[in-house]
C-alpha cells in the first residue's frame, strides 16, 4: 500500500468533506427549525453532514485499499485558456458586442489545443464566429448586437 496510490480517493474524500462542511456551516446560520416545521437550514444541514461523512468514508476506504491508480496529466495550459475565454466572453459580450467578444474567446480556446499555432487558431476563431452569427443571429434571431457601446 503506498500513499501515492491512494491519493485519488483521499483527494476525492477531501473535496466532499470541504463542500459538506461549507454547506453545513453556512446552513446552520439559517433558521434550522424542527422536523415538524423545517426551516430553510434543515435540509442542507442534514445533507451537508451526510456529505462530510461520505467524504471521510471515501478517504478511509481509499487509504485502506490503496490502489486507485495514477492521477495522470493535467492540461494546465488548456484549463487556464478555456477559463480565461469564458470569463472574457462573459465580461465583454455586453460592452464590446458579440463579434469582437466571441472572436477573442474562441481564439483563446483554440490556443488550448495541443500544438496549437496562432494563425490556424485565428482562422478557427474567425470561421466559428461567422458560423455563430449565422446560426444564432440570422437563423434563430437572438437579439445579440454585433458591436457594443464600448466601441461606439
Amino acid at each position: 500500500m503506498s500513499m501515492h496510490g491512494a491519493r485519488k480517493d483521499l483527494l476525492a474524500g477531501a473535496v466532499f468533506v470541504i463542500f459538506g462542511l461549507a454547506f453545513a456551516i453556512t446552513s446552520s446560520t439559517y433558521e434550522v427549525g424542527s422536523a415538524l416545521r423545517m426551516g430553510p437550514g434543515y435540509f442542507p444541514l442534514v445533507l451537508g453532514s451526510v456529505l462530510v461523512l461520505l467524504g471521510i468514508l471515501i478517504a478511509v476506504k481509499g487509504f485502506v485499499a490503496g490502489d486507485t491508480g495514477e492521477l495522470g496529466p493535467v492540461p494546465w495550459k488548456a484549463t487556464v485558456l478555456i477559463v480565461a475565454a469564458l470569463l472574457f466572453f462573459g465580461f465583454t459580450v455586453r460592452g464590446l458586442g458579440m463579434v469582437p467578444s466571441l472572436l477573442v474567446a474562441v481564439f483563446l480556446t483554440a490556443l488550448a489545443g495541443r500544438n496549437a499555432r496562432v494563425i490556424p487558431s485565428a482562422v478557427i476563431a474567425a470561421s466559428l464566429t461567422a458560423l455563430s452569427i449565422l446560426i444564432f443571429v440570422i437563423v434563430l434571431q437572438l437579439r445579440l448586437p454585433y458591436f457594443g457601446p464600448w466601441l461606439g
Partner: protein
Amino acid sequence: MELLNNLGLGFETAFTPINLLFAFIGVALGTAVGVLPGIGPTATIAMLLPITFGFEPVTSLIMLAGIYYGAQYGGSTTAILINLPGESSAAVTALDGHQMAKQGRAGPALATAALGSFFAGTVGTLALALFAEPISRAALLFGPAEYFSLVVLGLIASIALASGSVLKALAMIVLGLLLGTVGQDLYSGTPRFTFGMRELYSGLNFVSLAVGLFGVAEILRNLEGDITRSVMVQKVKNLWLTKDDFRRIRGPVLRGTGLGTALGVLPGAGHVLASFVSYSVEKRVSKRPEEFGRGAIEGVAAPESANNAAAQTQFVPLLTLGLPVSPIMALLLGAFIIQGIVPGPSVIDDEPELVWGLIASMWIGNFFLVLLNLPLIGLWVKMLTIPYRVLFPAIIAFASIGTYSIALNAFHVYAIAFFGILGYVLIKLGNEPAPLLLGFVLGPLLEEYLRRALIISDGDPSVFVTRPISLTLLILAAAAFAIAVLPSVRRKREVVFEEED
C-alpha cells in the same frame, strides 16, 4: 379505442410542418453528435436548451428528444467504422461491428444497426404509448410522501446501475442535492448560499451546470492526451443484407428489443445496461458463441436494438411521473419546467398534444433516422474527418452564446467555467458526473415533498412507512442499495463495465 384517438391527436400534432422540420433537425443533429466522438447528446441538449425557449413547448421537446435518440443511431456508425463508440451505449456494438468492418462487411453491419434500431425504436415508442396512460392514472393517487419515496428510489437505483464506487456515486448525489438548494427557500423566502449575489436568488442555472459538467470537463479530459483518430474510412458499399443475414438477425433483434424496452425504464444508465445484457444473452443462446468478438452479425443486431428500445422507454418515468432516470431525461425535465409545465401524472391530461405529439414524433423521427443513416451514410462518415481542434472551440462558442442568451446574464457564463473546473476535478478523482446532475435536478423536489409530507402529517416521520405505496417504494430503494453493495453483484458490475473501457 382511446389509445387510437390519442395517437391520432399525436400524429396530427407531429405532422405539422414546423414539428416535422424540428423533428428532422433534432435527429440530424443527434446523428451528428452521436457520430462525433468527444461530444455527446448530453452536452448538445444542454447547449441547445436556451435557444428552444422561444419555441412552442411541443416543438422544443420534439427537437431535444430527437437529439437523444438520434445520437443512439449515430453512435453505432462510429463504433462500427473506427472502433470508437461515439456514444457510451454503442461500446458493445464496436466489438463485433468493427470486426465486420475490417472484414469488408461494414455495409451489412451499418444496415443491421439501422434496421434493428428502427424496429426497436418503433416497439419502444408503442410501449411508451401503451403504458403512459395507466401509469399516470396510478400516479395520480400519489401524495407528497409517495413522491418523496419515489425520488429516493430513483436516486438510489441510479447508483445501483452506475459504474464505479457506490460511495462516490452517493457522495455525488448528495453534492448535487446540496447544489440544488442554492437560491431562495420555497417556504420562507430566505436566500440560501447566495452570498449576497442577486443572480443566485433563483438558484444555480442548470444549463450552466450541465454544460460545464458534460461539455467543458469533457473537453479538458480530452485535452489531456493526444486525440488521434485513425480514420481509415473506406468506401462503405453493399448496404443491403443477404437472406442469410436477415435470418440470423431476426432472433437477436426481437430479444434485444424486448430487453431494451424493459430495462429502459430503470434509473441510471438503462440503455447502456440494455446493450450489455442483450449482447451477453445472445452470446449465451448462440450455437456459435466463438464467433462473437470476431464479427458476428448477431453481436451488432442485439445491442443496437436494445439501446434504441431503451432510449424510447426511458421517457415513460419522465412523462408519467415527472421522474428523470438519466442526465438527459433530467435536461428534458428542465425543458418542461422552463416552458412552464410541471411534469408529473397530470401532464398527460393537461397537455395531451404535448405528450402524444412527442410520442408520435418519435416514430416519425425513427423513420427519418433510417433514411438519414442508410442512404446518406457517406455524409456522416465525412464528418469523422472534422478535427478535434475545431470541434472543441465550437462547443465552447455555442455553449457561451446559448447560456448567455437565456437571460442576457454574464453570470451564467461564469458559472460554466466554475462547473467545468469542478466537474473536471471530480471526474479526475474517479467520480461519475451523472449522479450529480440527477441530484441537482431532483434536490428541490425531494426537499419540497419531504417538507410538505411532514407538514401534512404534523411532523410525524412515520408517514413514509405507514402509507403502503410509500413503504413499498422505500423497500425497493433499500433492496436496490443492498444489491449495489453486495460483493457478488459488485464483481459482475465491474466485469460488465470493464468491457466498456
